[in-house]
């Protein structure tokens, strides 16, 4: 597990969900992510652009069977940032639980 490191880019709710979905796989098709998040094409494109600009996600377009397939995958930096962010969130939650227990 990476050292805790809160990441403002990943923390936005939809981007956090996108990165969480990409973490366990080599990549996901655009339509699959869009349908799972229940957002429009333009909303997803906007979030992927932010993640891509941060170097966390790679978006690829491939032609197959006469169609263009768009897929997204986490980069190494993205995977590391996600793990650090998850560690930071867990540290926050664990700290709050300990504080609540101590004040009881």
């Amino acid at each position, binding site marked *: 597990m990476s050292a805790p490191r809160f990441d403002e880019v990943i923390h936005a709710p939809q981007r956090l969900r996108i990165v969480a979905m990409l973490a*366990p796989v080599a990549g996901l098709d655009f339509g699959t992510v869009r349908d799972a998040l229940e957002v429009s094409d333009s909303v997803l494109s906007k979030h992927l652009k932010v993640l891509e600009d941060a170097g966390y996600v790679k978006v690829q377009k491939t032609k197959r069977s006469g169609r263009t397939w768009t897929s997204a995958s986490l980069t190494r930096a993205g995977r590391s940032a996600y793990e650090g962010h998850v560690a930071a969130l867990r540290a926050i939650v664990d700290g709050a639980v300990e504080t609540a227990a101590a004040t009881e």
Partner: protein
Amino acid sequence: MRRGPRWYNPVYGAACGLLVLSIGLPMPWFFVGVTVALITFGLLIRIYRERTGIVLGTGNPRPRGIYPWLVAVLGIGAGASYLDGHHGFPLGVPIVAVAVGVACWVLSRRYDAALFALLEGDGDPDTDGARAGGREGAGEARP
């Protein structure tokens, strides 16, 4: 999320069994079997992606618990098949191949189930910790 086809895991297991079987066979059946198995793997990866939108690759980081078992089963099976076929126990080759095929079928099903549980926000099967992002939902449905 859409799942892979029902026949995916049995066919995957059969292809793994064929690969192991081929290693214990003499030429040219070794090449025939390995070629058919590799073509089958390639087609399975493509079909899985078209159905589910999931891009499978080597070294998917999760689910960690199952992937090493798959690799171990295939490696041990390949070694046993080679020894059986090339050192005087040819009947052992199909037995090993069937055992490996069934094991890979079962592990592949579990891999699918664990993967969809992660993607649909049912949590990380490797830990009991809190989840970040994702959404609640039932999971089900690979390397």
